[in-house]
């Protein structure tokens, strides 16, 4: 992979006055987008383990993983907004919406997982974990981890 260092500390709040190199730099949020997906996928794995074993430890792993994934999702959202505002980017609507849908399913899921006992996971929590991971992986396979396009470029 041909790495391009992220231009650091050169963001300026005035639009249109940035060096050309920045426009071609990788976006910040792109680096972060895989994290929530990894958290939610891990939660799906621990959900499956809980479903098979009813061992409380797995359910606790799941709820922390989903909560952690949501915190990472919030960081992705912040980074994406910053990229849109300062990075000469425009939204990749299809991927951004798919990604948002996956995160919203996980938001629902964190509440279901906060229930006490077996029904925190089986069947609703486990189903939601699977749906969220399916949506997010589909988005990634279809279009990568970038939720924006560089302005003026179609990808």
């Amino acid at each position, binding site marked *: 992979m041909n790495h391009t260092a992220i231009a650091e500390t050169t963001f300026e709040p005035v639009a249109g006055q940035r060096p050309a190199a920045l426009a071609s730099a990788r976006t910040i949020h792109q680096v972060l987008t895989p994290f929530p997906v990894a958290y939610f996928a891990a939660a799906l794995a621990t959900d499956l383990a809980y479903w098979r074993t*009813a*061992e*409380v430890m797995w*359910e*606790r792993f799941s*709820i*922390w993983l989903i*909560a952690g994934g949501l915190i990472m999702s919030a960081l992705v959202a912040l980074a994406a907004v910053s990229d849109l505002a300062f990075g000469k980017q425009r939204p990749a*609507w299809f991927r951004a*919406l*798919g990604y*948002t*849908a996956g995160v*919203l*399913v996980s*938001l*629902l899921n*964190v*509440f*279901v997982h*906060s*229930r*006490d*006992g*077996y*029904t*925190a996971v*089986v069947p609703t929590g486990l189903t939601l974990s699977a749906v969220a991971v399916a949506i997010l992986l589909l988005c990634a396979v279809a279009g990568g981890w970038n939720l924006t396009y560089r302005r003026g470029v179609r990808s």
Partner: protein
Amino acid sequence: MNCLKVNPTKLPRLAAVLAAGVASLALASCDDAGGDPRVQIGANPVLPAIQQYLVPPIRIAQPVPWGNDSPKVPQGLQIHALAKGFEHPRSLYVLPNGDVLVVESNGPKAPVFRPKDLITGVVQKLAGAKANDANRITLLRYGNGDSAPQLRSVFLEHLNSPFGVALIGHYLYVANTDAIVRYPYEDGQTQITAEGTKLTDLPGGPIDHHWTKAMVASPDGSKLYVGVGSNSNVAENGMEAERERAAIWEVDVATGAHRIYASGVRNPTGMQFEPETGKLWAIANERDEIGPDLVPDYLTSVKDGGFYGWPYSYYGQHLDPRVMPQRPDLVSRAIKPDYALSSHVAPLGLAMYTANSLPAHYRGGAFVGEHGSWDRTPLNGYKVVFVPFSGGTPSGPAEDVVTGFLDQNNHARGRPVGLAVDRTGALLIADDVGDTVWRVSSAAVSTASTQGH
């Protein structure tokens, strides 16, 4: 306040559909007010279908000071503050010479296993339940109770979240959260400085979800009965954490050996011997998060070897789907409790009335201190009720005796906990939010009129 607010406008379609789904599910859990608690009082409570929440309701009563106000009692009774300025008084015990022990205690720090435990901590703080754990017993000595106590002394200090107290002969037994400790006691003593001797360990940390260990001595003084609450709402910490919990222990006073007298009682918070039959009765706090009217807390006679359902089933054999693996063998012999007090009232104090000075109506019945709900709309409990008994069993609906713990804005001026009957026959109430001990006595010498409403 506990509802998710998602604004679906301007969100694209798929997201909007999902957001609406989230919002409707969340809102569905917000407007389900509980029904009339009266249909859940008595031998055959109405039990609605289980409801599982997305956002469990949290409805706490914000604490406000009493000022110069007092709780309310029906005509024929009067109430006044016996003493104020305690630190979270939880239970009361009356010594043979009339001295009253006030147990000031507030449980160990709860561990954080899941994100919701962080939220629970905040909620308890808002409800005024996070006071410092004084770990102390204070002694009050007073004459006929109409004036302030003549003596107030620190009776016993440096305990470990104490709750139950029982005197047998010249030994005072204190049920800390993790052990029963025995102290020598002589009549009239106002302070114990002697080292205690451990009689037996009790299930304590590291979780110690239900930490109070209620305790009563058998009439012959040979056994102690100890209420050991569960380590979770409904076994979500795993059944290994529930070893010998959710049970009433019978502890041999001579040896400290114990056996499980009854099990499946989620949180037995008070035990008394019914005076007419000599049977053991208990109050218990049932489980949360399956609806505003599930599961009713109860008052029941306790059968030797009896299993009362927790966690597998509630109110007899109603299965709880949150528990896996299930135990049909246990559920098939789960005993239905005798008398429902309605849901989430949190009974924490029990006193069978055997004295004479209150109106005759109260003779032989049970007073129950209902600490009050934190997860139900509208609020339930926050009062002391009276359950009449006849022939050794409850014989009518529970009557409100001491009310007014909530003000008009549903703020909690106090919350009743432990009860006791003092030497003069007056009812004492520990109030752990108002930090007061209240005393209820007859309003007049002639109390021909019976009570109740």
